[in-house]
């Protein structure tokens, strides 16, 4: 068994298992850690696919920065243990599993018909990656994808605004009582009248 094949068959099950682990772990922190494992496995796959730059980015940015941020929030909000696993929605879980299986089957059919399970990666990727994967990527990025790259800046600005707008405490937070008080005089009456409308105007 060639090395890449071996690596694939080692890490693929781990990634799947860690993904499953993430979605069944009751503790949010554990789940997040499983996700990190998963990300790491995927990063390995990148390496197999001759994408060393993304391998690095995946580990540094994703598994590193992003997941840390998530973990940070989990800790901040103190909701690590909050998730109880009793399901209120009938059939949500079986349906979810069923649909996921169907989805996989569909992808399987499409992939088999589309590229086949024997197609190997063609040679000549080295030529594409001439001067190293990072350099090649850089060239494509700043030549062909110069614009999208700039666009991401807007995305990040919005993210920044989002953080300030949504997460920032209000100068004068609106209390629950205030809301109740405001809601009661008009909307309650409105709701009551609503009922009347229903009765009256559904055509006989």
């Amino acid at each position, binding site marked *: 068994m060639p090395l890449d094949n071996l690596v694939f068959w080692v890490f693929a099950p781990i990634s799947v298992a860690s993904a499953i682990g993430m979605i069944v772990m009751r503790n949010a922190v554990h789940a997040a850690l499983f996700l990190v494992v998963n990300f790491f496995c995927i990063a390995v796959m990148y390496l197999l696919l001759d994408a060393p730059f993304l391998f690095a980015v995946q580990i540094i940015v994703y598994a590193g920065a992003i997941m840390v941020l998530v973990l940070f929030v989990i800790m901040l909000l103190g909701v690590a243990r909050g998730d109880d696993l009793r399901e209120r929605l009938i059939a949500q879980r079986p349906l979810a599993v069923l649909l996921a299986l169907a989805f996989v089957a569909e992808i399987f059919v499409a992939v088999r018909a589309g590229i086949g399970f024997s197609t190997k990666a063609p040679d000549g990727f080295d030529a594409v990656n001439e001067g190293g994967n990072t350099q090649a990527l850089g060239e494509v990025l700043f030549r062909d994808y110069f614009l999208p790259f700039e666009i991401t800046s807007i995305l990040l600005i919005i993210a920044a605004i989002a953080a300030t707008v949504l997460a920032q405490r209000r100068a004068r937070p609106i209390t629950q009582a205030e809301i109740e008080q405001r809601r009661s005089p008009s909307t309650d009456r409105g709701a009551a009248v609503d009922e009347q409308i229903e009765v*009256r*105007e559904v*055509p*006989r």
Partner: protein
Amino acid sequence: MNRLLTLTTFLPVAGVVVVLVGGRALRDDVARAVALVTTIATFLVSLVVFGKFDPAVPGYQLVEQAEWVPAIGLGYIVGVDGVSIWLVLLTTFLFPIAVLASWPVEKDVRLYMIAMLALETAVVGSFLALDLLLFFLFFEAILVPMYFLIGGWGSARRVYAAIKFFLYTMAGSAFLFLATLFLWSRSSGLDGGATFDLRALTELAGGLPVTTARWLFLAFLVAFAVKVPLFPLHTWLPDAHTEAPTAGSVLLAGVLLKVGTYGIIRFNLTLFPEASRYFADLVSILAVIGILYGAVAALIQTDIKRLVAYSSVSHLGFVVLGIFAFTAQGVTGGVLQMVNHGLATGALFLLVGMMYERTHTRELARMGGLASVMPWLLGTYLFAVFASVGLPGLNSFVGEFLVIAGTFAVNQWYGALAALAVILAAIYLLWSYQRVAYGPVRDEHRGLGDLNLRESVVLAPVLALLLVFGVYPKLLTDAIEPAVARVIERVQPAGQTTDVGEVAVQQVEIGLVPDGGQQE
């Protein structure tokens, strides 16, 4: 270029604009006056149109054609022929009357008048449009102001009635819409590209496969059958008529229903002659059922407006029956009946409205003896009742007789069964009249006033026409007949009975042995 028809159609919009712009600054009386002046002016313009109209010419006249949305082949094409000229005149004639009859309306007068005027434009536009989509546009546009009129100024169950009217009609017209678009889509192969021009589509429709044409016919028919209304699509009508304000009922019965029958003549027969023949029996049977059914249902009504409404179902059945006889007499009778029903039933609703304003009830059981209190009002009512019953010498008779005679020659059963409604009409109308007018006077009705000047002015022209058109229907038929002949020529292949007046001549000349005739 001659812009008379456009002027007729859109003059009421000018009134709408005035009232809208005036806004709250406009006093109610001014709003009323604006509406009245506008509608009268429209009537006068339509009279000018009538003056320019040459009854002897069978085709469309005073045609105005302009590009509107060339991208989809939607044109602004309007024109009149012998059928539509009368319906337009009927409309423009009834509107000032309806406005005048609405004088007692106190609630939201400006809005009311806006709705009335908008309605007039929509209705007149429907009768004049020679572009299928333009027609549909006006046809749909009728719904909105009428909806407001019923829902805004109707009686207790007005909202139910208004929504029902609206949805029912809209559901029917959905099929018309699709069929229109289908024809349009088929017309893209024509020289001028895709178009909604009725004249071009008439050519096109002739070449459609038989089955397609039949489906399209049905789609058109459903829309119009709802509007007419043809049994069993009629149930919106009693509710709408009953709940609508007086002017609403008058216009609904007088004008709006005719859009349906007009549509059948103008579109179903013209576009799909083969399908018209194919479905003639089906439609005729429905019409006969409607005639009898409406009459029977009217027999037992306790609400006078509802009773008149059911009578409309019956009377409109005559129109449809006549149309699908495909004889000159039947179709002409049908068209005549449209105008006549508009006037007669319009008068009935006007009078019922006047009674309602006085007695505040529509329940027959709570009236009675009114003839002793308001002899003139009830006298005119009786006049209208007899016009509606189909008394010879008054207008409805001519149409009814022509329909029966025109149908009988083609199918004896239809003619004979339809005639039964004449008996039933006498029963329900006279019965209701008796309960309203005769018998002892009820205490709460003592001292009610008789017709006042405004009401007399409202009624006089209508009643006069009831008589005039009964005595001298040639006024109408001279213009109707050439247009009808043109339609029949298209529908009925040579050799079929198209003119019952010619039967005898043919038999004698060819020397046919008289056939076995009707087996009794």
